[in-house]
């Protein structure tokens, strides 16, 4: 390793040498040019490079790496695939980044107990692919599931379109192997559905990488439903679409998914994928019903009638898997399609009670006007989880500023409507400053105490989730490139 090239690094040369010995030189990245790739996740507004990246291959290596960092008092940030959307793996005063992507083995599949044990670097979709032939799937399905890792999912408590019926990550993790920040390996939870003692797995899931490095997870598998039907309903008025969502739920039907896209997104998706969406529609709903084949027809008929009653202009039911996949492709790649509309975009993630969807959409439209921005909406309507996509051009300093402020105003509006700051993307670096909108100082103190149970010295992903006294992180982070 070229010591001179690391001259301006905060990592002592002796530590760098130790790490290299533990994982091998090929599993260490230290050149600034190569580290550039790791300076942000999907939240691209803010950037900060680690001084060193470590790519361990085993739990033992992770443990040895953390022990070495512990001896030197050096903080670290865990990273999976870097697909997060709140800056969860953005290094903030964490010189070392530990990426689990090489720990990507599926260790065991136990169909009898509907369990799978995986290393944390396994890609989400690979779990479902591995068990598909036997009629099972792993149900949390974030839009990034082709790339995101289970370790990242566990840390962020990831969701996805199908969580309305099947739940989010925390409902599907039975156990986890965790390497604590001092290098100790602990096995939390395990093979059973009841916890012995405190639910530490529950505390770990969604801790956003502040509890150490998750190296393995035991996940629940779900039986594939016998049949699925997907319906696309097209609306001339956004309010009619949101009323349809409420009507379906009120009828006692819990679809596998109810997704909504507004006009801006419809046009982007149509231009990119040509799936036959009318470019002048105000909104479309994608509604998926799953379960026994024998009951699907009736239930889909009921959903279609409710959509018509609420004002749907056109209703299309996918006739086969190919049509169904085309509909879902449009939805899952909507974010990518938006890339055609502007040089940059920031995906927001807020939640409102489902019945307040019309209110928040009105608010978002007003905010877009106020800040002279284009904002599209694609979201999980069934659980009130909105994803406004704010378009901007990072070369325009003033537009970036307006985009950030608009995002904050949207979150405030969600909170005012009885909602929350994030449904599935996490607080990360992005939303720390907003935490006091929903949590009191006492709430935050107790959460900090919980955090220190796992990480007494706050060296695992420091400066995340909970705002530090003294206000915004921007002013206190010398390593971080200013967002503006």
């Amino acid at each position: 390793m070229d010591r001179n090239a690391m001259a301006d690094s905060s990592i002592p040369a002796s530590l760098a040498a130790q790490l290299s010995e533990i994982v091998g030189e090929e599993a260490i990245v230290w050149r600034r040019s190569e580290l550039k790739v790791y300076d942000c996740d999907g939240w691209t507004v803010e950037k900060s490079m680690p001084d060193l990246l470590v790519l361990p291959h085993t739990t033992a290596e992770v443990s040895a790496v953390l022990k070495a960092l512990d001896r030197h008092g050096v903080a670290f940030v865990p990273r999976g695939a870097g697909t997060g959307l709140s800056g969860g793996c953005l290094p903030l005063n964490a010189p070392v980044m530990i990426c689990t992507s090489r720990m990507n083995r599926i260790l065991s599949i136990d169909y009898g107990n509907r369990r799978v044990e995986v290393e944390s670097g396994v890609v989400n979709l690979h779990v479902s692919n591995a068990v598909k032939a036997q009629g099972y799937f792993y149900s949390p399905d974030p839009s990034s599931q082709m790339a995101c890792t289970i370790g990242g999912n566990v840390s962020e408590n990831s969701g996805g379109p199908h969580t309305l019926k099947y739940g989010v990550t925390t409902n599907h993790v039975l156990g986890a192997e965790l390497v604590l920040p001092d290098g100790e390996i602990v096995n939390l939870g395990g093979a059973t559905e009841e916890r012995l003692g405190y639910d530490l797995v529950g505390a770990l899931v969604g801790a956003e990488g502040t509890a150490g490095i998750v190296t393995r997870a035991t996940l629940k598998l779900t039986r594939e439903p016998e049949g699925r039907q997907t319906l696309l309903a097209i609306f001339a008025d956004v309010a009619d679409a949101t009323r349809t969502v409420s009507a379906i739920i009120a009828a006692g039907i819990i679809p596998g998914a109810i997704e909504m896209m507004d006009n801006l997104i419809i046009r982007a998706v149509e231009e990119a994928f040509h799936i036959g969406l009318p470019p002048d529609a105000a909104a479309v709903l994608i509604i998926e019903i799953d379960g026994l084949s024998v009951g699907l027809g009736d239930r889909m008929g009921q959903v279609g009638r409710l959509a018509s009653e609420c004002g749907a202009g056109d209703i299309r039911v996918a006739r086969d898997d190919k049509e169904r996949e085309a509909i879902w492709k449009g939805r899952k790649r909507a974010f990518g399609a938006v890339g055609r509309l502007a040089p940059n975009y920031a995906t927001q993630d807020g939640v409102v009670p489902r019945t307040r969807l019309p209110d928040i959409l009105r608010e978002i439209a007003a905010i877009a006007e106020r800040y002279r921005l284009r904002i599209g909406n694609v979201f999980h309507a069934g659980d009130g989880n909105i994803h406004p996509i704010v378009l901007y051009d990072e070369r325009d300093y003033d537009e970036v500023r307006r985009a950030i402020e608009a995002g904050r105003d949207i979150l405030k509006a969600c909170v005012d409507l009885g909602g929350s700051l994030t449904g599935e993307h996490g607080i990360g670096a992005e939303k720390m400053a907003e935490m006091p909108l929903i949590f009191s100082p006492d709430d935050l103190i107790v959460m900090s105490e919980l955090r220190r149970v796992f990480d007494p010295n706050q060296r695992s992903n420091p400066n995340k989730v909970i705002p530090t006294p003294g206000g915004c992180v921007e002013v206190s982070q010398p390593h971080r490139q200013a967002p503006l």
Partner: protein
Amino acid sequence: METSHESGIDLDTPAKTVTIDEISRVTGMRQRPPVGIETGAAHAIFEPENAEQIADLIRLCEEHAITLAPVGAGRTLATMRAEPVAIGVSMARMAALVAYEPDDMTVVAEAGMTMGALQDLLAARRQHLPLDPPQPATVTLGALVGAGRSGPCRLSEGTPRDLLIGVRFAGHGGRLVHGGGRVVKNVAGYDLMKVMTGSFGTLGIITEVTFRVRPLPERYRMVRIAFGTIDDAFGTARQINNSVPLIHLEVLSPGAAARVGYSAQAGNYVVSAGICGNRAETDYIAARIDEISAAPVEVLQLASALKEYRAMRDLVHAPGEIALQIAVPPSALERCVSAAGADFRAHAGSGVAQLFISADRPAEEIRDAVDQIRAIAVEARGHLRVTSMPSGLSGVLDIFGTPNAGVMALMRRLKLAFDPAGIFNPGSFVGGL
């Protein structure tokens, strides 16, 4: 350090002596002596009217090293305490509905509300909280969450941890803390709901809970099948579970089936499967089960299905018995209940079973019997908890068992972080926490 006498209890502490009456006066809280099963749980019962009173109480208790714990009906606390705590905090006067949004399918209620009262409210809008511990009408929401209780419907709907979306509790220093919110999907902040669920009053006093609720099922039918051998019963249950969606799936030992009143199946192991859906779906599922089962299948229609489901749900230990719950990987459940040799109700798809053993024998024998069954569960990578027992056995049995050393160290740190003064139901949770 705690002695009873006529005018209340003297609580001798190094700092000073305070009496229960003084605490009651300072906090303005109503108090009463414990009655019935509560006597094994607490020396005095306080009935706060709001969270602020609980916060005051906690500050006083921390100052004077007085122990306290939440009590619902008092059953769980009486079972787990070798010695009663000084103050049992009853939530009977904090039992109000805070908010119910049927269209959002969320409900917020104070922790003293019973499940029975809540289900009545929800049923008016054709919804329910799909958690079904035995005799739910008397279970408070605080106890439901605090003890992480569940029942047959856990197979399809999960347990309190899956449905609790927000929590408020009074913690150390009298802090009034909340986690989560009132929306069904929310990852803002650490998951305090999971931390409090199943913490048995050892981390603070839960004052308010928010649940997501579900629509009441369209149609409910129960399919019941009797088998001569345990092998056939579990084997068929497994096959059914792998073939059709079920609401619940139980296997009852012959003795348990008899107690539930399944008299026609006398001497047999009984599989009881719950099915829901529209007419086409329930008919289809019942027909599929009939195809799978080698033994004759009985399909109970709504009224009788509900009656038999309730009898099965409410099955608890008889007087003079100890109730145990084991949790193991589902595929090991049959082996474990067989080896235990006790009467049981098994949630076959979930790997959880309640076992009933006789308490009518010397304490030492009972302890050996529990240890032996715990060893069977641990061998199968599971664990055992004593869920109910006669009061004479307090202090004799290890109620929870102990996790491995690394996990136990983390749990100690959690307890210390949330209860630095060691006043919240101390000494009777896992590893003596």
